[in-house]
């Protein structure tokens, strides 16, 4: 049977790559520590497959068709298409895991979810910056799960948590000897293309992290349901951390690093859970 070998979360943001030269040494230290620790954990967990939950930053989907949740079921996925990342990220293609992805979709359908599927996704910076900066090489096969965190209406926080619980059931019922990890990518607070652009809401981030570390998923869900509409739009990506929290059963959270990094416009967090 498959083993849930690791559960992780990390922030992403284009400026972590594009503006790296402008990041102060102290802030580089925070980011390097977070990504390095994440990479060390992923390597030591010897993953055979990694499920990554991340938003789509208008790369695959447009107003014509905006799924709330989409699972990449292809044999391979395209690497990032952002010009500032293509020269730095070493993979033009990333292996997928169609059988595991299909099992996740089937399990979802049997448990009250109706995700869309894609046989060919582009994995943008949300997927690839954590892999790049954490030095995850060689890459395990990736099962991408896209949550719509970008364009309202969004899936509810509770639904994201329940998706995580379902994902755990899917992994644990996969009848093959695989070591599987789950990574939630995004957040914490940031604001893009709004009057508050560049603002990092450190108080919100720290309270949010304290709720992840607490022992009540209900308190976390309630807090985020109330506060996400009141903070910068990028914080919506915390839904991906909530899904990871659901995979972990709402417990076992451990903060690796946090820093409000104004040079990259993001409250950057790194975390893992006891599987």
């Amino acid at each position, binding site marked *: 049977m498959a083993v849930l070998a690791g559960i992780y979360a990390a922030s992403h943001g284009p400026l972590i790559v594009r503006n790296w030269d402008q990041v102060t040494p102290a802030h580089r230290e925070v980011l390097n520590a977070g990504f390095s620790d994440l990479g060390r954990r992923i390597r030591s967990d010897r993953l055979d497959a990694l499920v990554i939950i991340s938003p789509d930053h208008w790369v695959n989907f447009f107003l014509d068709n905006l799924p709330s949740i989409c699972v990449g079921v292809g044999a391979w996925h395209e690497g990032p298409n952002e010009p500032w990342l293509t020269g730095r990220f070493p993979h033009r293609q990333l292996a997928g895991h169609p059988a595991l992805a299909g099992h996740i979709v089937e399990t979802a359908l049997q448990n009250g979810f109706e995700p869309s599927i894609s046989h060919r996704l582009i994995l943008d910076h949300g997927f690839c910056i954590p892999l790049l900066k954490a030095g995850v090489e060689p890459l395990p096969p990736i099962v991408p799960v896209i949550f719509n965190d970008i364009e309202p209406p969004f899936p509810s926080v509770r639904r994201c948590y329940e998706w995580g619980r379902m994902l755990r059931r899917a992994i644990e019922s996969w009848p093959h000897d695989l070591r599987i990890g789950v990574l939630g990518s995004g957040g914490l607070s940031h604001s893009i293309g709004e009057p508050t652009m*560049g603002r990092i809401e450190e108080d919100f981030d720290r309270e949010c992290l304290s709720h992840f570390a607490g022992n009540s998923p209900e308190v976390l869900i309630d807090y985020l349901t109330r506060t996400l509409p009141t903070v910068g739009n990028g914080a919506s990506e915390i839904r991906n951390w909530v899904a990871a929290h659901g995979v972990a059963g709402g417990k076992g959270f451990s903060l690796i690093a946090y820093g409000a990094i104004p040079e990259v416009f993001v409250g950057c967090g790194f975390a893992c859970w006891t599987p």
Partner: protein
Amino acid sequence: MLVRDYELSRLFFDLQTPACAEEYRAGRQAVLDRYRLEPAVRTAVEHDDVAFLASRVNPYLLRFYFFVAGMPDAEFIRHLRDADEGGKG
């Protein structure tokens, strides 16, 4: 449900294609001619009117567009904040 300007959003989305972005930077008019933009919207695009465009597209697409159009982040943010202050006035 938010109201979105589909044609404007489509323009911003399509400019993610490097060839399209290059063509746009070389001369906006030929690219703009391919989209059925309302006259006021086209004028706003031609004049980099951040405040006008901000109300019509997703903020991520807006930010991406002005990055492609060559507006520095600091200037973009200043326009966003000026528009917000104006709206409150």
